[in-house]
């Protein structure tokens, strides 16, 4: 990789294209939409992609030209399920900020209030070509709180990492985790029956609260928890539900449809393949691992063809990491899915376009197209070759990782 910085000449000849901020040239471009572009050029201006094509001329005066001969260019990768920041490295008790387990219903707490901006895992994720993530609270609570959509910009501040264009999102959970964590003090659900009953009760309480606020002669104080639930009921917050077992998925659909709520994505969803028709009908997607299984009973029926079977019926499938480790190798995880039978195009979509759609930002990221954010990843080889490495990661036209300068980042300040 050679990085050539050209001085701004300021001498644009009449009729020539306007100088760009960044040109990546001679790359094999995998744009995700449309076919592979050989000898591809991507031009970037003001953080957006302004041109994509084979052998495009680089406008005179372009600030930075990256020669990616022999290399592959993909959209920046997207991880729809991350706990980076809320369970920061190094893993110690003091960094356990992802589960506000004082009550099973905490829709008003916000992951962004807990994100440790200095989590060294962020730099490792950038070195894995990841540019956007959804940071979720944990799954101890039925409603664990609001998620934080982030761009992995190099930033000292949380504000500097926000993915402002992303709609709000909330993390909910069902199955084993929420019924387990409150078992000791018998406050909260102890069974799957309790899980769904608590959810129904909570949504009904929010509707009653609204009625009281609107109709009661006595003033009813504003309640942040109820307001958050109303935002969910009004469709202003996307619903992401941690849900493994197929009958749990069915049960969540049952409860949500009672309240006219649409689930955006079932997360983990290891038994989604058994009810893929129900998920398609409801209009949800899934976010899952290729082949994790067996760590608990609701993960015992996982099969590695899950992603493929679910995607085949038209459901959006995001390959998620749920891990500061595998987030660094989403592309290798996607290659495993190809080994399990999925097409390469579909597998590429699971780490780019599909998570973008489920995050609600497909007009900004997830493909290499004119008008989209210049979130780009340069690979030394095809991303599904296990010996590939991410050479550069760009976010909005800024270089956020360059292997030639730093190698794989370590966990130091």
């Amino acid at each position, binding site marked *: 990789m050679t990085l050539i910085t050209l001085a701004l000449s300021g001498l644009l000849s009449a009729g020539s294209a306007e100088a760009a901020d960044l040109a990546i040239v001679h790359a094999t471009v995998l744009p995700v939409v449309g076919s592979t572009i050989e000898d591809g050029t991507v031009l970037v201006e003001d953080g957006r992609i302004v041109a994509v094509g084979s052998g495009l001329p680089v406008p005179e005066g372009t600030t930075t030209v990256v020669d990616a001969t022999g290399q592959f260019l993909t959209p920046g990768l997207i991880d729809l399920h991350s706990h980076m920041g809320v369970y920061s490295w190094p893993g110690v008790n003091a960094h356990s900020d992802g589960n506000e387990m004082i009550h099973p219903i905490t829709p008003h707490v916000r992951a962004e209030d807990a994100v440790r901006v200095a989590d*060294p895992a962020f730099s490792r994720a950038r070195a894995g070509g990841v540019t956007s993530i959804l940071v979720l609270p944990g799954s101890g609570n039925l409603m664990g709180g609001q998620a934080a959509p982030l761009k992995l910009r190099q930033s000292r501040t949380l504000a500097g990492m926000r993915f402002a264009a992303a709609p709000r999102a909330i993390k909910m959970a069902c199955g084993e985790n929420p019924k387990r964590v409150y078992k000791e003090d018998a406050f909260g659900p102890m069974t799957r029956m309790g899980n769904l009953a608590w959810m129904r009760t909570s949504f009904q309480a929010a509707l009653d609260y609204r009625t009281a606020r609107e109709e009661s002669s006595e003033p009813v104080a504003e309640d942040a928890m109820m307001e958050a639930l109303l935002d969910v009921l009004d469709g202003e917050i996307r619903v992401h539900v941690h849900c493994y077992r197929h009958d749990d998925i069915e049960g969540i659909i049952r409860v949500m449809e009672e309240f006219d709520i649409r689930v955006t994505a079932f997360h983990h969803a290891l038994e989604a393949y058994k009810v893929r028709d129900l998920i398609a009908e409801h209009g949800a997607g899934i976010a899952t691992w290729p082949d994790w299984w067996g760590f608990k009973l609701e993960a015992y029926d996982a099969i590695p063809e899950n992603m493929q079977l679910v995607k085949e019926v038209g459901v959006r499938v995001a390959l998620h990491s749920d891990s500061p480790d595998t987030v660094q190798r989403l592309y290798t995880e996607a290659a495993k899915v190809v080994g399990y039978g999925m097409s390469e195009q579909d597998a590429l979509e699971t780490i780019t376009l599909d998570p973008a759609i489920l995050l609600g930002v497909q007009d900004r990221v997830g493909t290499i197209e004119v008008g989209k954010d210049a979130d780009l990843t340069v690979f030394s080889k095809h991303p599904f070759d296990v010996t590939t490495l991410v050479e550069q990661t760009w976010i909005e036209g800024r270089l956020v990782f360059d292997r030639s300068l730093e190698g794989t980042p370590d966990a130091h300040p």
Partner: protein
Amino acid sequence: MRIPESTKSWSRRGVLGMVAGLPLVARAADMPALARGLGGYISDQPHDFTLSNATVLDHSGRLQKGVGVRVESGVVVEIGAAVRGGTDLGGDWLVPGFTDGCSHLGLFEIGAESSTRDDQDKPAITPDARASDGYNPLSAPVAVTRMAGITHSVVCPTMSRLVAGQAALVRTAGHTLQAAVVREPVALCVSMGRDGLGGDGAPSTRIGVGRALREWMAQAPEPRSDEPRGRRGRQAPSDDDSELSPADRITRSLRERRLKVLVTVERADDIERALDWLVSTKLDGVLVGCAEGWMVADLLADAGLPVVVGPLMVQPDSFDHPHARYDNAAVLHAAGVPIAFGSRMNHMARGLRTDAGVLVAHGLPWEAAIRALTTGAAEALSIPGLGRLEPGSSASFFRATGDPLQPRTRVASVWIDGRETAMRSRQTELYERFRTLQ
């Protein structure tokens, strides 16, 4: 659940491997065959067969294209272009079976369900605990692991004990312990650093670990007389083992270097402590983990100890290995440290081959990764005959659609000791059940 038309047809399927579900009624005489099918073998006995037009990989990473392999009575008798006929593999690869150098395979069915966990004993120091006492050859992860090309696994009790117990070498097929367990003990498992702080009477700090290990050794029986470590002039203990407890017998065989000790250790200073402890006690050690081994690669090379690296993707996510790096294995290999790979997993052991591929991306020579996966563990633990695909070797190998380190490559068939095994697991049965929705 499909019910076969007759028990006769079922019985034939049983020998060839289960199809789906169990028959409502099976003749008693058919039951052993049915049970053997559960163990994964398609054929009852090793048989003679020929595979041709293959790309044959050996443990050193050498590739021979367009050759055939002839197997007789479970042993590879010939490899070469002259071997023709039999099954045409169309250029697919034949790869020596991989050995997971440290796993917890088959010791528990469900991670979070304690009622299914048989992976350790309660006390902190249990030299007489045996992995084979917890191993279930029909546990669902076994077939899943085999289908990833792992034909053998060094099964270790879970390492959250200072002295966790004895490791067993298993083959990943066979429905009985007799068929599955190849050898035990292959080593005694010890953990240093903060990995081994679990169990009754466990130390709670590194200071406690050092003290407890010294105390354990001090209480161990002396090696017998011909051993150079015996205190001068002291009479050797009797050769009669009956006076010793099972734990002491194991500990004495450690001190006599008749049994290796597998020491799990991650942080660089803990590796130093492990090396010091092994030198002072004169034990025959193999290290496991060594996430920060790259920092002390020269010490490890000087000590001449093999390292079972793993889990391969260990991260700098903890104060116990803040300097973990992707190129750890590459650095160790370059320094001359013999390496093997251990998943230290159960259900997820199947990721070993592709994780090894990631290490190649980070500088480990491809041939070194192949060697670590094939003969690495066997050489580290002095187990002859594993991981080779050459005339005279046991026919334990697998067919793959290409480079086995590549995730897009599929493992198509697995043979163990000359017997073909079924590409069938709990997972494939679920896939078949739900491939179409009814």
